[in-house]
């Protein structure tokens, strides 16, 4: 009983907070959410086998006996000194060629890659939505929705309330009762985005996750990102499809060979990028 009362009071507290947040949103806008300070990321890649050292068992043993590190290790300097400040209510598009360090930058902001030099400071814990982020592929879409919501800390009542909205938003219809392994990549991506965006995130990082959606989904997800911005969250979006960025973002960062080549209004950056 005491537990229940406690929970109720907590819910009430959170509701009060939420109400507060809505009122305060415009003021919150000016507050920074992500500060990236001279960030360098060097990561190691294993298994880039060279011609003369093949990865057989005998070589593996010799390597351990000689106390060498793992074989065929290559260092990739993916991000080379990036600095910027992102604010509440920003939707920032990150563009650049393949291998320019966009995804690495997102992973570093999410805290998944430790900085080699420099630092990332964030307000709260950023969430990363990636292309391959099938949540639990053996389970049905329905289970994935329920579990995803629970994992984000919702109560059963909140999940029941959000459930239909998530199914509706993802547009997967009757597929909701099939395991996610049976989904097309587009359906999986839509469902993941629907689940993750059911809750307000302070910082949401989206890595190409919207690329596979159809026109209808694109429209809906842009609407959702706009909502998040209004609720004073910050959204980062990596996409090769420039239309999506142009329509969703209020700021664009152009990455080139691990550095920021340009940072500013979408019109300016995008036109420079397309001319390039």
């Amino acid at each position: 009983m005491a537990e229940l009362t406690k929970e109720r009071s907590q819910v009430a507290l959170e509701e009060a907070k939420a109400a507060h947040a809505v009122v305060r949103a415009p003021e919150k806008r000016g507050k920074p959410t992500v500060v990236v300070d001279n960030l360098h990321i060097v990561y190691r890649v294993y298994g880039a086998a060279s011609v003369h050292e093949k990865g057989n068992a005998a070589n593996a043993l010799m390597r351990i006996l000689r106390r060498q590190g793992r074989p065929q290790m290559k260092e990739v300097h993916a991000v080379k000194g990036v600095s910027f400040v992102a604010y509440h209510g920003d939707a920032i598009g990150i563009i650049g060629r393949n291998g320019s360090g966009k995804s690495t930058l997102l992973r570093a902001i999410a805290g998944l890659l430790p900085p080699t030099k420099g630092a990332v400071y964030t307000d709260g814990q950023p969430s990363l939505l990636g292309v391959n982020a099938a949540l639990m592929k053996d389970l049905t879409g329905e289970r994935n929705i329920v579990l995803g919501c629970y994992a984000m800390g919702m109560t059963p009542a909140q999940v029941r309330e959000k459930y239909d909205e998530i199914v509706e938003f993802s547009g997967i219809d009757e597929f909701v009762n099939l395991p996610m392994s049976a989904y097309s990549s587009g359906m999986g991506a839509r469902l993941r985005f629907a689940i993750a965006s059911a809750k307000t995130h302070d910082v949401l990082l989206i890595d190409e996750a919207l690329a596979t959606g159809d026109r209808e989904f694109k429209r809906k997800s842009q609407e959702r990102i706009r909502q998040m911005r209004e609720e004073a969250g910050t959204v980062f979006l990596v996409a090769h499809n420039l239309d999506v960025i142009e329509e969703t973002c209020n700021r664009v960062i152009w990455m080139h060979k691990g550095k920021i080549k340009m940072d500013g209004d979408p019109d300016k950056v995008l036109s420079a990028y397309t001319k390039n």
Partner: protein
Amino acid sequence: MSQPESAVADAQAGGRGGATPMKGESLAAFAERHGLRRSIARPALPVYLRQLWQRRHFIVTYATSRNLSKYSNSVLGQLWQVITPLLNAAVYWLMFGLILGQKDKPGVGGNYTAFLITGVMVFTFTQRSVLGGAKSVSSNLSLIRALHFPRASLPLAYTLQELQQLGWSMAVLIAIVLVTGEPVTLLWLLIPVALLLQTLFNLGAALIVARVGAFVRDVNQLLPFALRTWLYASGVFYSIQEQTKGLPELLRWVLEVNPAAAYIQFMRDLLIFEQAPSAFTWITCVFWALCALIVGFLYFWLAEEKYGRG
């Protein structure tokens, strides 16, 4: 606007109407002034426990869903929950009971079938919890990367899943014990206590291997061997007291103090030998449960911010 440093310049110019770093202020100081924190910090222990409690629905639902989907591809479906332990027991009965002649040895209580199956069921519970625990973090990386939740929820859910499976095994076990002629006694009331202690131990063990397995993938190759050695050393098919008579005292003590052997002994005392577990068995069972849980939990929590990285 086209220089890498543009963000700083841009922010200093106040172009975006937001708070900006003051003249000469470093970005680090600016971030600190606004209460931004570096990377993911590990929550304090009480906070962490509270977060875990908030995720109880996740833990229970995850365990149940995994159990239900586990056999969904096979014809016999959920029946495998019962068939697998029975088949295991049948193989061991054939090998050890019949061929190696353990079934007529002293110390098995004159009912080798019940003796063996109790041992197999109890050991399997620990074995599967450990195997599941080792994969609980490493096979859920995308979930970990996409959503925030206390990572200990995963080994917890995996252990709970095994506990749910054990429900079936226990029903089979009790049926066999009754069919082979053991009476129901008041001691059976202690069965939940035995299971609780073993579950706590399993949870602790799962937490430990979950952390190791998250960073060293080789563990998944090694664990089956370690677990098989443990199986043979835990008196599942034989009576430790009877079979180790010629061995040094210290070795015998090590075998009996081993947690799996203790939990097996506890359950056999209740179901077959119709005697209250000895003080030694009680102490061993409680000690391992608390020890594994506390050490496992702390060990797992200490790496909380590192799961899913790299």
